């Protein structure tokens, strides 16, 4: 067998493993959290592809041997129709060893067997059984995204993120709060982008001193919450930090069913899925030289920022 045919034959034999890899990469899109696709050049991917191809070929060889023996037995009961088709695997081995000329029917049978093996490998990886078996394993190396977004979503929780961005003016900055709709990570697990559905936008401020209360520690306060709606996509370069809370879907449904006006922001500090009434603030004290900002809204959801 010359080099070109040997190369093609090797690719054909590896095809079920490649099909399994492609199926695996497509499954990642389902979670709403994406890592870069497994490249065939990576050692892990090559090992998985080779292992899957070997397993599927062993299974395929067993089934083909069984069906060919059944076809021979059937030939003793009914009159055979068409040309004699050799066992495809035996044909492939004979061709590799340089013995014999395969018929076109045998080659077609071999290609059909490979096609069905690819379907088998695809379905093996795409089956819900794999998700159940790997439920608690972070097989995609997503890190905190798996623990706080992917896994809670799988078990009936809604991940709500509070994102503080780098867009700032003096002591004030812009932040967003909403349900995590999409999140992308780089090859090293760094946050590339995050998408928030039905977000609220707010202004945040870090208050470092309060002349009326000198012993008070610096704190983060939010103002001017505005319901934006739709989807906001934030690139990793503008994200200062991210806080993620997992809220039970039952609680989310309960809040959504509550008519507007009945649910105060103070009662549900971490669930903000409906436009919130602006929190009453203490009247600002105007001075000649400097106008002080309104009193804080006391939003507790952004007091413990996590690095994204």
């Amino acid at each position, binding site marked *: 067998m010359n080099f070109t045919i040997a190369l093609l034959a090797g690719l054909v034999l590896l095809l079920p493993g490649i099909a399994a890899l492609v199926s695996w990469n497509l499954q990642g899109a389902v979670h709403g959290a994406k890592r870069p696709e497994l490249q065939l050049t990576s050692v892990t991917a090559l090992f998985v592809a080779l292992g899957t191809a070997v397993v599927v070929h062993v299974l395929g060889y067993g089934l083909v041997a*069984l069906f060919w023996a*059944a076809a021979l*037995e059937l030939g003793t009961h009914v009159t055979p129709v068409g040309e004699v088709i050799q066992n495809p695997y035996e044909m492939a081995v004979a061709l590799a060893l340089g013995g014999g000329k395969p018929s076109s029917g045998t080659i077609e049978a071999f290609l059909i067997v490979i096609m069905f093996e690819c379907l088998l490998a695809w*379905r093996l990886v795409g089956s819900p059984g794999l998700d159940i078996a790997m439920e608690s394993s972070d097989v995609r190396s997503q890190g905190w995204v798996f623990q706080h977004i992917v896994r809670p979503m799988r*078990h009936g929780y809604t991940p709500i993120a509070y994102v503080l961005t780098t867009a700032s003016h003096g002591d004030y900055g812009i932040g967003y709060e909403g349900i995590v709709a999409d999140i992308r990570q780089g090859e090293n697990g760094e946050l590339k982008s995050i998408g928030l559905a039905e977000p609220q936008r707010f202004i945040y401020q870090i208050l470092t001193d309060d002349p009326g209360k000198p012993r008070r520690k610096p704190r983060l306060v939010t103002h001017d919450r505005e319901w934006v709606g739709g989807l906001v996509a934030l690139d990793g370069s503008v994200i200062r930090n991210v*806080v993620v809370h997992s809220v*039970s879907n039952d609680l989310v449904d309960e809040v959504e069913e509550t008519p507007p006006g009945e649910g105060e922001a103070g009662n549900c500090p971490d669930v903000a899925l409906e436009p919130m009434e602006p929190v009453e603030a203490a009247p600002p004290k105007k001075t000649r030289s400097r106008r002080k900002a309104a009193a804080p809204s006391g939003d507790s959801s952004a007091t413990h920022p996590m690095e994204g």
Partner: protein
Amino acid sequence: MVGEILYALMLVLGVPALLALAVGWIRRFVELLWLLPLRPVIIATTVLALLGIANVFLGIIFRLPSMRPLSFSLAVVAVPFAAVPLSNYIAYRRRGGIDRELAWKDFIFEATRQEQRRNYEAPRSEQ
């Protein structure tokens, strides 16, 4: 002429039918493979029982000798289609304290997911 028409009909109808059968068989076979670690006793018992029943059935109806390649291969083709729904039904009937709202179809997967959900604790930040 008639032979050619029959041959063409066989190609046009038979090939897609065989393809659909093969795809359906692959789906059921893979599902059986993933069900085995979740309920090994039920799946193993169901598959062996159905293989035996299929061999007896083929021996009675088609006079095929049992445990030979032809009868065994026909049984291998038929068993996944019956084993998956039958195993789910048997597990559903033996469900014990599991939520009775689950349907018997896909019961084993759904019951396992429910158990995982029950055992799952959200991260501490959950309110």
